[in-house]
């Protein structure tokens, strides 16, 4: 069995009487692409924030890359990468400046910064754009760049919060090529998406409904279990029962 990089047991977060995340239990393995699905308001963001060391749970246990979510949040942050759809990069810095800025934050040396940024720019084919402001790049390029930036410090896990929302179908697939490459190199990918075809690209997925994980398995097994042909139908069967209107 492969090494466990996310381990959560009955992880719970309450806000007053409201149970945003209710006894979440899951394990995610090294190099796995794990899809974290759920309707708006199901509690995905709350769960992600606990996994990233940004929010202290109310009860339950979890370790991320081996570090405790209550006591070792700084170590968690150093060992994970994070990319959200909303905040990607500094629009008024150039491509190169963004890479150097985030590399610097993660304490890369000057020599590492130099080699890493050359490597990244070549890999993404951004040689001509390296000294241009990020604001001028098409959204798809920004998202690919910000994914690569999230991997700069060689994290064990990278959390992707709806990385492909609004991106065209061709660029969306190029983005998934980057995800596969990273996973092949042993990085664990923890990704949320509203595109059900992307759920099929994950090794395993979980579906949250009203704060709880209602299903967790490979896409193939989930379809078999629910006796349907697509992940869309699996999602629909589970999420339409949601009582919590966001």
């Amino acid at each position, binding site marked *: 069995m492969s090494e466990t990089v996310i381990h959560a047991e009955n992880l719970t977060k309450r806000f007053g009487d409201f149970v945003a995340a209710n006894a979440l239990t899951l394990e995610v393995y090294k190099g796995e692409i794990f899809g974290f699905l759920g309707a708006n308001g199901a509690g995905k963001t709350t769960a992600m924030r606990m996994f990233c060391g940004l929010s202290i749970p109310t009860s339950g246990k979890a370790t991320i890359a081996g570090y405790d979510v209550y006591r070792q949040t700084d170590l968690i942050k150093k060992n994970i990468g994070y990319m959200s759809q909303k905040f990607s990069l500094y629009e008024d810095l150039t491509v190169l400046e963004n890479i150097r800025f985030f590399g610097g934050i993660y304490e890369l040396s000057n020599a590492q910064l130099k080699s890493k940024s050359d490597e990244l720019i070549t890999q993404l084919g951004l040689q001509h754009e390296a000294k241009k402001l990020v604001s001028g790049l098409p959204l798809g390029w920004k998202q690919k760049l910000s994914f690569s930036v999230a991997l700069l410090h060689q994290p064990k896990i990278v959390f992707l919060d709806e990385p492909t929302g*609004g991106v065209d179908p*061709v660029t969306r*697939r190029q983005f998934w090529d980057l995800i596969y490459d990273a996973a092949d190199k042993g990085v664990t990918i923890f990704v949320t998406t509203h595109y059900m075809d992307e759920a*099929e690209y994950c090794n395993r997925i979980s579906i949250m409904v009203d704060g709880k994980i209602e299903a967790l398995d490979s896409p193939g097994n989930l379809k078999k279990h629910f006796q349907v042909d697509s992940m*869309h139908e699996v999602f629909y069967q589970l999420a339409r029962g949601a009582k919590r209107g*966001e």
Partner: protein
Amino acid sequence: MASHPALVVNDLTKVYGKDKAVAVNKVSFTVDRGELFGLMGPDGAGKTSIFRMLTTLLLPDGGSASVDGHDIIRDYRQIRNTAGYMPGKFSLYTDLTVEENLNFFATVFNTTVEENYHLIKDIYIQLERFKDRRAGKLSGGMKQKLALCCALIHKPTVLFLDEPTTGVDPVSRKEFWEMLKRLKDQNITILVSTPYMDEATLCDRIALIQQGSLLSIDTPENIVKSYPDILYAIRASKISSLLKVLSTNEEVASAYAFGEYVHVTFKHEGPHEKDILAFLHEQGLEDIEIKPTEPTIEDCFIKLLKK
């Protein structure tokens, strides 16, 4: 006299900044009364610029357009009275309550909530228990429903919805489209934009847009019918290796992931099943399935983007 179309757009063009970046490039289309017309394209394709020109919030740099027979430059006052607009970005008053926002928009248009309540009833019922909550404190889905109510409260003849479902989960998206269908039945013309290709089939007609230019305008059925190639769906135990292996095959014209399958077109006419099966086995892949498949709007869009 035959009634004129609800929207007539003719060579509409928008250019931004000193670099003269062309955001909308000679776009032309018409939308009939009571039609549900979808503008499908990714972020940055020019969808929002088109919406802002048609709702008279932005002046075009070329071409012309009319909404319900009113010219977007000359007759902007009439358009502002008769069009409903839900921008992509939440634009209601966050420090007014749900009820106050709705009353405000009704009053601005010289009407009352009671007068047009039948139009918003289905949607407003879901919001009613939050009517004293400030709009800024609503969840994403509720904000979206309130914005739609506010765009409808003056009984518009044409409704402009700019990416109403972006970032919304599949179940809520489905509910939203059911609401749109009911509005269409009330003879309201709807222009809606979306980056989700699966929503295309819910429109009467769609236009595919990329980098400011329309690639195709037709009914979803006809766009799918005009797909020129025979498309195959191939599955194997590991999708990432399957993609890599297929890209090395000389007969393969295109191969891309599509849910649990890879969609593949070939350079020459088939049949290809036997050869590909042998090739994939030779490359060490297992559990292979190959079958011809019907293209979707997303396949058509990918084909057009790669041209």
